């Protein structure tokens, strides 16, 4: 049953820092141009792996954003988070309207400061004394603490760690925080960065494509990893309108659930992915017929893309071929803990631009993926509503229902 007294949740601020754009404006340009950010990685040694590419934020210089003292205390993930959160907060203007105690943070986290912590381990194993500050960011909650301190936000804080669905869940939960009045504004999003652990780990599972990922294509071999941070600011629509805030769109509803099937493999039937999408529509009060397109989880692994296509058919039936299922991971790479928010923000921007993004890097038609994936180019669209799917290790699934 859909809660009848739930207020409409408006999106009033956007912020991003990623390989595909270091602010919303440049990210929008990459999206419109269909420009992939995937290329060679030089953040750590990749020569021993079959794949050496990803969507890395190249040439990042902490001192462009932080004092040396500040930078020394923050991991790469924390820094990306503080930068992107700052853009979203400035864009929304909420800090000028609400008490710091009424602005909360709901963040999706991933590998956190693992990039630095693994260096501590490497040096320690070599018998040398490692710099202890390398361990500062090892816990995923550090990014929230850093953002709260940087912008004097004193309201609710949480870090959600459901792997690749973390930051999609953080947005849904942020909407709940606003809907219940626990906060007046919720800064929701995620931050994650490339690390040797995740790069080596996914390579060890043989799910990394040596070429830029090609979701839903014939011959796809897996993911391309990415990094970055993205944030949305959510508010009650009535309050946002009272303060004449710019409204980019709405988070109409969400759902989350578990497959209870396998730690790394999705249930091949797609039944639970479909169930969560249907529940999200139910909570949003939106009939499936009103959904214009889906921002897929679309990792580019052979299994994920086939299962997600199957789930689409369970949700939309005969109409499934008319509802484009697109993946923007060819643009941004798979940003893991930040992926859900990067893709939610992409969805908001695309809805506002009246377009459906292209799924990049097409290699040929896969008979198991027989829907419309916009492989040949972006499309213009009058759609008002889109879904954004996030699937994760452990069978954690989150679907967001977003409108412009």
């Amino acid at each position: 049953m859909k809660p009848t007294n739930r207020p409409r949740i408006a999106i009033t601020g956007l912020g991003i820092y990623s390989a595909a754009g270091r602010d919303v404006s440049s990210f929008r340009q990459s999206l419109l141009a269909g420009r992939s950010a995937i290329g060679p990685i030089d953040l750590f040694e990749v020569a021993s792996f079959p794949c050496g590419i990803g969507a890395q934020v190249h040439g990042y210089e902490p001192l462009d954003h932080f004092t040396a003292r500040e930078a020394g205390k923050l991991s790469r993930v924390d820094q990306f988070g503080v930068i992107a959160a700052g853009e979203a907060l400035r864009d929304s203007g909420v800090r000028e309207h609400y008490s710091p105690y009424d602005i909360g943070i709901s963040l999706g986290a991933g590998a956190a400061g693992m990039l630095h912590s693994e260096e501590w381990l490497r040096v320690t194993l070599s018998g040398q004394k490692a710099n202890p500050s390398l361990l500062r960011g090892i816990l995923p909650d550090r990014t929230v603490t850093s953002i709260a301190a940087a912008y004097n936000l004193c309201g609710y804080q949480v870090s959600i760690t459901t792997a690749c669905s973390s930051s999609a869940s953080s947005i849904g939960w942020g909407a709940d925080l606003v809907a219940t009045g626990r906060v007046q504004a919720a800064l929701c999003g995620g931050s994650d960065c490339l690390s040797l652990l995740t790069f080596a780990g996914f390579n060890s599972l043989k799910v990394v494509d040596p070429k830029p990922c090609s979701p839903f294509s014939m011959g796809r071999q897996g993911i391309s990893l990415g990094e970055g941070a993205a944030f949305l600011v959510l508010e009650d629509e009535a309050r946002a309108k009272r303060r004449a805030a710019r409204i980019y769109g709405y988070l109409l509803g969400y759902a989350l659930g578990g497959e209870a099937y396998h730690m790394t493999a999705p249930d091949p039937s797609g039944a639970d992915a479909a169930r969560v999408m249907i529940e999200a529509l139910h909570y949003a009060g939106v009939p499936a017929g009103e959904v214009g397109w889906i921002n897929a989880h679309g990792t580019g692994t052979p299994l994920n893309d086939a299962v997600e296509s199957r789930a689409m058919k369970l949700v939309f039936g005969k109409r499934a071929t008319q509802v484009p299922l697109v993946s923007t991971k060819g643009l941004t790479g798979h940003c893991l803990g930040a992926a859900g928010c990067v893709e939610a923000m992409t969805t908001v921007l695309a809805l506002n631009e009246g377009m459906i993004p292209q799924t990049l890097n097409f290699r040929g038609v896969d008979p198991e993926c027989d829907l419309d994936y916009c492989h040949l180019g972006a499309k213009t669209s009058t759609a008002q509503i889109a879904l954004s799917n996030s699937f994760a290790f452990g069978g954690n699934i989150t679907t967001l229902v977003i409108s412009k």
Partner: protein
Amino acid sequence: MKGHALKSALHNTVITGLAAISSAGVGIEPLRGALERGECLLKPVPEGILAGDGHYWGKADAFRAADFMPPLKARKFDRCSLFAVVAAGMALKDAGIDPASLDLSRIGIVLGCGLGGIANAEEFMRGYFTAGAEGMVPMLFPNVVPNASASNASIEHKLKGPNVTTIQRFCSAESAFLMALRFLEEDRADVILAGGVDEVTPVMLKGFQALGQSRSFGSGFSEGAGILVMEREGDARCRRAKIMAHVGAVRTVGRMPAASAQEGIDRLLPEPCRADLVVLSGTASGDRALLDRLPTAPRLETGRILGRSLAMGGLAMTSLVLRLPAGGRGLYLAASPEGPWYAIDWYGGDPVQP
């Protein structure tokens, strides 16, 4: 209670089951006994792990995975996941819930987890650093994610409802608890297992020592799991479940800078502040400004008995439910060094069951 069939108009959330794995032992009874005795169960950290005297930890030494599953199966889990899988089963049993008889999509699990996954990450990377790509053990990687424990528990018990893992300093389990409350309130599930799970390993202690925290926040670090079964009161009464406690208001503040700390305290602990039992978790016992606001009532600090961990709130809230007299009013206060803070009102069940 199948699906939505027996929904009631009552929306209060109640606790109908508990599970604990801790330095006190495996199960609720060892914990109850330890709380009654009030003795500290921390043991010295072996000399080979941390140099110097005065280091203690709270290992769940009595826990043997083989008591609950075949060794071959246990091998696929990290220690944190083992705690979660076993504790989730114990909690469901304590609540009298047979998942197979219910709509599994209506049973969720929301756990706080602080250090879960780090042990596997360390072992995986150790293999890479010592033997290159050939040294990596792929089966370790899936359990490096912090949600491995909640997800493995959901897989083992076939729970398909909301499945979330949270971390926020020493209030990781309280974050999960608040989320679970909302999921029940919004009818996203009928039953939620909520609480915390953590493990402690030698390399973690070395990390605390490297950061200079082995005698402060990292002192007396512990491991285990505390899980509470949460349901709407109406549903629980329909199935004649034992009501162990009622959950009252949950208040939380993220950060309290000195300039506005009074506002934070007022929001967290509005006056008048009444309770028959106060339970302190995380670093609350060192927060003088908050302690001054607390009512005069018996205080229980589980960290002194069991040790501390980031998700210790699961065990601390379980302890509160065990100690709160029927009809009594409890106040639970959790704190972290840089925030957040949680204050939760509780009411003893009818009656608190033995």
